[in-house]
């Protein structure tokens, strides 16, 4: 039976092209690519059956039906395939963590080291620790994820630090937008860092914002005044774009009452708020919508896991969407590729299909102010494109080609290499350590 694994996969023209294209992935100049006759989900507009997508100079040049491939373009026959924008993971630790439980391979979570007295939070900047060579990047790229928000995880203070949007090309210059958002943990995670109560957490939240306002009103004056040392200047400095309402503030909250308090403070401080969590969001969906807050949620969560999740339900995403809230789905780091499983499950629970696809492509781009550049297949946008071998929300589907910034991506990765090494366990002339790895 193991012999079956040796059976060669029929090499179609299509895959042959991809292999050739992948070899060019590192080339300095992006080429012109014509993806022809696929089912094209533009996300921003209609689904185009037998649709074509023309990529030129890293951008989407044209999207439509019955287009002509430009002269000299690499042509991909995508008939029977599905074409979508690349997936966008809205919050994750990818780029900051290699192994969760290994301190020297985890730069995302200060809480895991001897950092209890570590003084800074908001000042942390994800790009300082960004490792574009992380093995997590090719694994998730091969599964169709092309962009992610790389965010620090919360440490001793409620503010985790500044997150960056990256692309998953693995290239050194793969930061799309540094300081794209600030992250703060409230709810139970905020309470446990502030005397064990939500009152304490919100009081400290207000203090940070008030102190930041005070600092930014007159920095020179502020630093000359005496302080009790509770607020690091660099944290207050980093909160400048947050108190201006320029930088999105991702707030981790779950319970309906925490969400209501957040909405009140958002209005008081005129913040640009994105909620992360919102397990009970559906109970206050209209209020969230009225406050113009986007929600990053978990499409698979339905347990009263903590007292702030009592009303968690798989229908959360569908109900939030129904109320008009912009939603998206998140996963930790290693498996941000699973956001499409979240989306698929949400569809099974009533979220319209196109809304689910939008939730993992255009919506996160919009949340971070990149909706004009990324997230949909429209002429002029950055060419992050995925060609799937089936329905992209289906767990059995995989990408056949991935483009980031118009460049075809290498879909090989550590997991594939390990599999190739061990798929045939016949003893060879040399140990397994001599196999594969190319």
């Amino acid at each position, binding site marked *: 039976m*193991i012999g079956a694994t040796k059976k060669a996969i029929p090499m179609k023209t299509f895959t042959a092209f991809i292999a050739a294209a992948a070899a060019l992935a590192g080339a300095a100049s992006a080429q012109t690519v014509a993806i022809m006759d696929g089912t094209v989900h533009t996300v921003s507009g209609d689904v185009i059956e037998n649709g074509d997508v023309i990529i030129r100079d890293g951008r989407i040049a044209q999207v439509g039906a019955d287009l002509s491939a430009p002269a000299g373009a690499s042509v991909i026959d995508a008939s029977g395939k599905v074409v979508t924008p690349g997936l966008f993971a809205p919050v994750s630790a990818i780029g900051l963590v290699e192994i969760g*439980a290994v301190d020297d391979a985890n730069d995302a979570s200060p809480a895991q080291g001897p950092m209890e007295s570590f003084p800074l939070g908001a000042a942390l900047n994800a790009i300082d620790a960004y490792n574009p060579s992380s093995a997590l990047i090719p694994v998730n790229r091969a599964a169709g994820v092309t962009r992610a928000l790389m965010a620090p995880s919360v440490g001793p203070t409620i503010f985790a630090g500044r997150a960056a949007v990256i692309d998953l090309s693995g290239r050194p210059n793969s930061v799309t937008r540094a300081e794209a958002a600030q992250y703060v943990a409230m709810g139970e995670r905020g309470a446990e860092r502030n005397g064990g109560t939500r009152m304490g957490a919100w009081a400290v939240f207000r203090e940070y914002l008030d102190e930041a306002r005070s600092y930014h009103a007159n920095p020179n004056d502020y630093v000359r005044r005496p302080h009790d040392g509770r607020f690091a200047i660099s944290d207050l400095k980093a909160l400048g774009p947050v108190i201006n309402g320029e930088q999105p503030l991702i707030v981790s909250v779950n319970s309906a009452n925490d969400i209501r308090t957040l909405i009140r403070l958002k209005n008081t401080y005129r913040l640009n708020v994105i909620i992360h969590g919102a397990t009970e969001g559906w*109970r206050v969906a209209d209020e969230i919508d009225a406050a113009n807050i986007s929600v990053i949620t978990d499409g698979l969560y*339905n*347990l009263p896991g903590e007292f702030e999740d*009592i009303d968690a339900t798989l229908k959360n995403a569908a109900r939030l969407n129904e109320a008009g809230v912009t939603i998206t789905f998140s996963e930790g780091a290693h498996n941000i590729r699973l956001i499409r499983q979240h989306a698929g499950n949400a569809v099974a629970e009533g979220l319209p299909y196109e809304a689910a696809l939008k939730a993992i492509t255009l919506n996160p781009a919009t949340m971070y102010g990149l909706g004009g550049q990324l997230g949909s297949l429209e002429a002029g946008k950055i060419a992050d494109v995925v060609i799937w071998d089936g329905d992209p929300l289906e767990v059995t589907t995989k990408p056949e080609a991935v483009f980031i910034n118009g460049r075809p991506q290498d879909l090989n990765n550590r*997991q594939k290499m390990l599999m190739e090494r061990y*798929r045939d366990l016949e003893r060879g002339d040399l140990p397994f350590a001599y196999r594969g790895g190319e």
Partner: protein
Amino acid sequence: MRNTGWTALAVLMLSACAQQTGTESEEAAEAAASEDTEIAAKTAEKDEDDKDKADGAVHPPLDPYPSTYEAYPGETVLLTGATVLTGAGDRIDNGAVLIADGKISAVGAAGDVEAPEGARTVNASGKWITPGIIDIHSHLGDYPSPSNSTTSDGNEVVNPNTAYVWAEHSVWPQDAGFTRALAGGITTLQVLPGSANLFGGRSAILKNVPSRSVQGMKFPGAPYGLKMACGENPKRVYGERGGPQTRMGNFAGYRAAWIEAAAYKKKWEDYWADYDEWVENDDDDKGDAPDAPTRDLKLETLAGALNGDIAVNMHCYRADEMVQVLDMAKEFGYKVRTFHHAIEAYKIADYLAENGVCAAMWADWWGFKLEAFDTVGENVALVHAQPGGCAIVHSDDALGIQRLNQEAAKAMADGRRIGIDIEPEDAIAWITANPAEAMGVSDETGTLETGKMADVVVWNGNPFSVYAKAEKVYIDGALMYDRSDPKRSPRVDFELGLHDNSFTGGAGQ
């Protein structure tokens, strides 16, 4: 022969006791194959018999926390027109399943299975029917929702060897996770102690039926399992608490325990031999009956594992460690039934198959620990593809248990992409027949075969799809979950009266 670890251990002792008295030996064997209550009754009779002769032998209790589960009433139902995956390798398009008296009464092509008089016929065309889903690795009840320090009852982190604890004694039947799992098609699950310790304790095999007590959930007659753990967890937890601090320390800990357990086992066997000799002795001055050894809960469980009555479930990520564990099993003469979290099973899939060990795996979890770094999506498929390979998809998670079908789907798809021929009728076994076999309950559940418990899931479509939902879940023929009917959708006590979440579609949906 089906028996609990406890009963089996005791039966072994009974057999030893009754070696020279053939009728009693037969009686013991017969008892072992029957209901626990019968065993207890027969043992009591036997005790009475012995009393006539002397003071009576000391029996460890056969089954001190016996199952009180009884199937709930169900109709005679013919589900017809569906795509049926039997779990035994067959797919029947336009098939039918007849449920009667809580059992699978017939399975076949739609036209070939007739509804007996009084049966209700359900048109299930467009639906898929599978055996009830089985999760071999769960902590529901032991790590329930809500999760906090007052409910965290899954890891007895006080000693590297806590073989003396029984997971069932931590199970909170009011864990809402059970109901969510039910909505995902789970009908049977093994609740294991956590993996902090070299020997974590005994598992509990449960039917996923709400109950006031864990006894009301215990799978009647299911054997016990023993949870063990390799690698990082024990050395991390005990590294600065007296050890083990290293993987070699882990092994020294296992081996010392097996040596102690072997001695304990022999002590009891010797006792029974002496006792039998004493019973046979007709001398008037033969003296008092021999003293029974003192019971030791830890060693009782380990002795049960040594004699094969308790299935060894070993959490082990790395291939090299699994190979070492199998040598250790040979050294002490026990069998490892299943490696759990076997991230690197694909590296030794041939060796696992040769040794008859199952590998329980995730579809794609990875990277949370170094020993979990080498995940490949094809792991399950590569284990499956070995002649004699035994692949199981498990959850270890209160969310994952709700969609084991999707996890199996991912693993199937990844296997097919590298040319391994896996059909839904094969892959369904990873979450039904194979875990049933590894847990020792395959005579009762795990496949849709005549005479087995009617543990059945009706899906609204192909279960190897993200869009598939369990619509109806039957356990022993009783309709325990119906996605469309609030009256067939359990809610645990904890959920009542909290906030305003009235019925929202079933079992916390």
